[in-house]
């Protein structure tokens, strides 16, 4: 019974954001495994590699927009293609410092984005996200059984 979402991926080129977010998740006991990627390309490579190992795949993925090489938007384009091959549904949250309404509405229009979250992300917000994910996972389990 692995109902609780335990694996979180952070895709962000900002090392400090990676560190503060993973520390906050750890301190609050919100995640067991935290995967950190500096850009979209590395994250995509990982997802493709572990597509058939649901335990290795993240439950929640925090995706930055502005990154070198493959940015958040480009990640989403490629994710849409590989999504079907993944053995676990991943809830993707776009996490950015951009308050540009064009970014916000673009994120909301993307079917693979659960929500758009503005940085900095508070502990409360992280807890809320993980709670929502837990509810989603258990509802999926009920539907399956």
């Amino acid at each position: 019974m692995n109902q609780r979402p335990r694996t979180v991926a952070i895709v962000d080129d900002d090392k400090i954001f990676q560190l503060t977010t993973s520390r906050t998740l750890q301190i609050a006991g919100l995640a067991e495994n935290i995967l950190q990627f500096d850009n979209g390309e590395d994250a995509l490579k990982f997802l493709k590699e572990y597509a058939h190992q649901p335990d290795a795949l993240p439950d929640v993925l925090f995706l930055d927009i502005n990154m070198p090489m493959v940015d958040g938007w480009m990640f989403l384009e490629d994710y849409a293609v590989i999504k079907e091959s993944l053995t676990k549904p991943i809830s993707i949250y776009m996490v950015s410092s951009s308050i540009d309404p064009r970014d916000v509405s673009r994120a909301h229009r993307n079917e693979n984005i659960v929500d758009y979250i503005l940085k900095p992300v508070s502990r409360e917000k992280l807890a809320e996200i993980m709670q929502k994910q837990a509810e989603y996972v258990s509802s999926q389990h009920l539907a399956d059984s």
Partner: protein
Amino acid sequence: MGQKKKIATKKAAGVSKKPSAKKSHKIATKPDTPPAKQGISAARKRIEQALRESEQRFRTLQQASFGGIGMHDQGIIIDCNQGLCDITGYTRNELIGFDGLNLIAPEWRALVREKILSGYERSYDVVGIHRNGIKYFLEVQAKNVPYRGKVVRVTEFRDISERKLTEEKIKEQNARLTSITQELKRKNDQLEEFTQIVSHNLRSPVGNILTLLTLLEESAEETEKAEYISLLKVSAFAAQQTLLELHEVLRIKENIEVERQHLHFADIFSRTEDMLSGIITELSATVTGDFSLAPSLLYPGIYLESIFLNLMSNSLKYSRSRVKPVITFRTYKNNEETILEVADNGQGIDLDRYGHQVFKLHKTFHKHPESRGIGLFMIKNQIETLGGEISIESEVNKGTKVFVNFNKRHVDEPETADSSHSRR
């Protein structure tokens, strides 16, 4: 032909004016004159009178006309009105016997000759030449008419300088408005981009600072606290750095009128080479410059140095491992435009994938530790502020070519009016 006869008769009537008057008097005093003959004389008198009036009317109309009217026989002016004198600057005496083509600017004479030969009767625009040598816009309309037994050409000249000038002014205004619109659009785009940068690049470190402070407050361990404090410093520095860069960008945008100097590309090139000599030696790079086709440029020195430095260091930074960098700088002219082309054999960029990001701030395309992604953004701003353009061609694992067009001529810029067509 009827017209010809009428004119001929008119002349004759004019000459025999007095005797005719006497005759009519005689007629009046001779009641024995047959009624038929009397009738013919009266009719003749009436015709003569009508002709005189017609001649008078013609003269008046001709003189009153604002246009210049001339009558030409085989190209030679045989008669003209005051209007033609006013337009051309010659007196009537000077004009009579003058070749009408001399009133047309030399480069337009062939056209006019062709119109005369073909008997063209609609109006057309040419350039006239005034007695004082000054050229002016002219609308010409001519018609072949029979006159004293031969066919002459009656020509009307209309000075349309005013109209042409107005037309040109409208065209100029239109071009100016178009360019203002483009400039505003460009400014607006830049402003949006600027907001985006401020939004992202300032909020990121500030957000980090806030989160780090929370973690610091809650931390009990000294080593952890020290870690947070050092990261706080990094974030604060990043925020400050962004502020400095944004200030720099604003400074460039405001500074369109920055002083331009006469610069030799070769000088700037060797100065750049000197600045990067360390890395050039380290990579055994071959850096060459050929500026023979366009050796110099009027441009702000600091900007040109910045362009050379950024492009050369980018080519060096993104060279392929185990491939000695070969970088060539060359300049050439494309019409009035001066182009700088920088080619390298480096890693290249997949432009289909990353093309939209190339000139954005803090965009880097290589996992290089020194990538800060400022260079191309900054020089693009400098180049565009001075009316130029930068573009890129690249192939992954082959190399990159960057083109800087320093003084791009925009297609819809107003055409410079021929200065010789000034008003008399």
